C-alpha cells in the first residue's frame, strides 16, 4: 500500500493530460490560437472615458444653469404637474431690446450672462482633464499586465505565439486609449494642452516643445526642451513591417531644440541630437542618428553640406548671429552651426537646384 503523501506528490508532479489528440506524425497537435483584437475592451474603455469625461461636466453645467443662472433671468424649473421651464412675465428676456437691457438694467442677470461663457470654458477644461485622467487610469492598468517596452513583436494572426500575441494585443489596446486622449487634445480648442497631456500619459515632453497639427506619436517618446515638430511632420516609436510581418517598437528621442521643419517622417529608434535639423520632406526610417548642429534632408535623410545649405536651402540669406545670452537661455553650449561658416553675400543669385 502506497503512502498517501507520496501519492499526492506524484499527482502534483504528473503533467496534466493534453486536450488535443496525437497526430499522425507522432507529436501532439498544437492547440490553435484564435486571433482576437479585444473589441469589447475597446468599446468598454471608450464608453467609460466618454461617460465620465462628459457626464460630470454636463451634470455640473445643468445644475449651474437650472439652479443659479436661469433663475437670475426669471426662468424657473417647474416639477409639478409637469416638468417644464417656466418664464416669468417680468423676465428681462421678455423686454424689448433685451440684449441691451441685459447690460444697462441693474440685476443679477448681467453677472450670470457675462460669466456664462467662462463657465463653459471651465467645464470644457474639466472635460479634457477627466479624459486624460480616465485614459491614464486605463493605460496604467493595461501596462501593469504588459508594459510598453522596446522590442520586436511578431505580428502573426494565424496560430500565433501566445507570448508575442499577448504583447501585440496589449500594444493595440494601449495605443487605442492613447489615441482617444490625444485626439481630444490635438483637435480641441486648446491644442497647447497636448504637451501637458503627453506628459500626463507618461511620455516626456520638455518646456517649449511645439507640436504642429498632423502630429502622430505613440508611447516611448521623449521630446526635450524647445524641440519643434513642424506641420505635417510625424514621429512614431513603432513601425509595422508588412501586414503579416512584425511590429517594431523603439524609443524616439528629440534632443534640445531639435527641429523637424515640416512634412517629415521620424521613424522609430531615431535619435536627434540637440539642434539637429531635418529639412522639409526629409524622412528617417528606423534607428537613424542625427548629429548635433547638423542639417539633414532627403529620403532617406543625408547630411547637407554647409555650402549647399546656404546656396540652395537658405537662398544665400544672411543668418543672424545668435548671442551667447540666448544660448544661456536655451541651456546649451554656444556653438555656431556649421552652415554659418560659409555665409554668402546677400545678393548672390540662387540656383534652386535647376
Amino acid at each position, binding site marked *: 500500500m502506497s503512502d498517501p503523501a507520496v501519492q499526492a506528490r506524484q499527482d502534483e508532479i504528473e503533467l496534466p493530460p493534453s486536450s488535443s489528440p496525437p497526430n499522425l506524425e507522432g507529436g501532439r497537435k498544437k492547440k490553435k490560437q484564435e486571433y482576437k483584437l479585444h473589441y469589447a475592451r475597446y468599446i468598454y474603455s471608450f464608453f467609460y472615458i466618454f461617460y465620465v469625461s462628459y457626464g460630470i461636466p454636463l451634470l455640473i453645467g445643468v445644475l449651474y444653469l437650472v439652479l443659479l443662472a436661469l433663475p437670475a*433671468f426669471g*426662468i424657473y424649473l417647474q416639477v409639478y404637474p409637469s416638468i417644464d*421651464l417656466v*418664464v416669468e412675465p417680468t*423676465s428681462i*428676456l*421678455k423686454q424689448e431690446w*433685451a*440684449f441691451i437691457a441685459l447690460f444697462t438694467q441693474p440685476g443679477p442677470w448681467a453677472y450670470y*450672462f*457675462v460669466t*456664462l*461663457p*467662462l463657465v*463653459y*470654458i471651465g467645464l470644457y477644461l474639466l472635460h479634457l482633464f477627466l479624459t486624460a485622467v480616465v485614459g491614464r487610469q486605463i493605460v496604467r492598468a493595461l501596462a501593469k499586465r504588459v508594459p510598453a517596452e522596446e522590442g520586436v513583436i511578431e505580428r502573426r494572426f494565424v496560430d500565433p505565439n501566445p507570448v508575442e500575441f499577448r504583447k501585440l494585443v496589449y500594444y493595440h489596446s494601449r495605443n487605442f486609449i492613447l489615441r482617444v486622449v490625444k485626439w481630444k487634445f490635438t*483637435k480641441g*480648442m*486648446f*491644442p*497647447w494642452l497636448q504637451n501637458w497631456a503627453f506628459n500626463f500619459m507618461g511620455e516626456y515632453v520638455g518646456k517649449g516643445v*511645439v*507640436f*504642429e*497639427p*498632423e502630429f502622430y506619436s505613440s508611447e516611448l517618446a521623449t521630446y526635450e526642451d*524647445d524641440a*519643434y515638430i*513642424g*506641420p*505635417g511632420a510625424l514621429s512614431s516609436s513603432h513601425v509595422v513591417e508588412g501586414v503579416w510581418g512584425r511590429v517594431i517598437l523603439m524609443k524616439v528621442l528629440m534632443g534640445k*531644440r531639435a*527641429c523637424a*521643419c*515640416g*512634412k517629415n517622417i521620424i521613424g522609430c529608434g531615431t535619435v536627434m541630437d540637440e*539642434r539637429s*535639423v531635418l529639412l*522639409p*520632406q526629409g524622412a528617417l526610417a528606423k534607428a537613424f542618428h542625427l548629429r548635433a548642429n547638423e542639417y539633414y*534632408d*532627403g*529620403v532617406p535623410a543625408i547630411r547637407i553640406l554647409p555650402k549647399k545649405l546656404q546656396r*540652395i*536651402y*537658405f*537662398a544665400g*540669406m*544672411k*543668418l*543672424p548671429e*545668435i548671442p551667447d545670452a*540666448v544660448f544661456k*537661455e*536655451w541651456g546649451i553650449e554656444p556653438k555656431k*552651426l556649421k552652415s554659418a561658416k560659409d555665409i554668402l553675400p546677400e545678393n548672390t543669385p*540662387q540656383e*534652386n*537646384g*535647376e
Partner: protein
Amino acid sequence: MENDVMSGTDPMEFNNEPYTTNTLVMHRYVGWYIVLFWLSSLLPMYFLFDFFFIRLPAWPTFFFLILPLTLIGNWVVFILCAILFSRILLSIVNLFHKPREGVFIRSRQDKDYRYWSLRATIKKFAFWAAHTFPLVWMDVIAFKAFGVKTRMGTAFFNAWVDSEFLEVGNNSMIGLGAVVLSAAVVGDYFIIKKTKIGDNVLIGAHAIVMPGTEIGNDAILGAMASTTIGQKLEPAWAYMGDPAKKFKENKFSVNKDFKGKEKRLERESTTTTGFREGDSISGEDGK
C-alpha cells in the same frame, strides 16, 4: 470674368485642419484667446436664450420646425463674431508691432518671433471656429479677413496654409495635405517671407511650399515636391522633386497653343472659370 468656383463642393474637403501654428511663446497669450471666445459667444448665447425661452414656448410648432435653421444660424453668427473680434484685436496688436519679413532667431527674446506667435494665437481662435463649420467658405472668409489675397473659389484641399504674407491667384488649387508657408522654423532660425502663388497654379498633394516662394502663372508643383526658401518657379512649367526642379513644360497653359485650347477657353468663359487678364505676378507672362 471673375472666377468664383466654390471649392467646398469637392468631396475631398475634410475641413479638419487648422491653419495657424501651435507655437506659444508666452502662456499669457492664451488669455487673449479666452477673451475672444467670451466676446464671440455673448451674442449667439443671447439668441439661443431668446429662441428657447421666449419664441419656442410662444409658437412651438413653427419654431420647432425652424430649429435646425436657428442652430445653424447661431453657429454662423458665432463664427462671424469670432472673425470680427479677432480681426479687431489683430489690428490693435499690429499697431504695436507691424509684421515684417526677415530672418529672426527662434527665441522668446526676439520681438518678431513673439509677436508672430501672438498673431497666430489670435487668428487661431477664428480659424478654429471657422473649421467647425462644414462648409469651406468660412475658412476663406477668415483668410480674407486676415489679409490673405485670395478668391472665394481658391481650393484649399485640407492643406496647411499660412494666413499672412500670402497671395494666392485666381483659379489656383492647393492639393490635399499640402503645406504652404510664409513663416517657417528652420532650426534656430525663424523666417518670414512673402509667398506668392500665381493664377491657375496647381500644387500637388503633400507638397511643401517654403516662405518666399514665387510660383508663376500656370505652373505646377508636383506631389510630394518641396520648394526652397525664396525659390522662383517659372510660369507654365511643371516642377518635381525635393528641392523642386524643372520637369517639363506645361503644354496646357492658357498662354500656350495646345489642341483644344479654344474649346477649353470657351467652356471656361461660359461656365464658372475664367482667367484674369493683365493681373499676374509681375514679369511673368508665361512665355
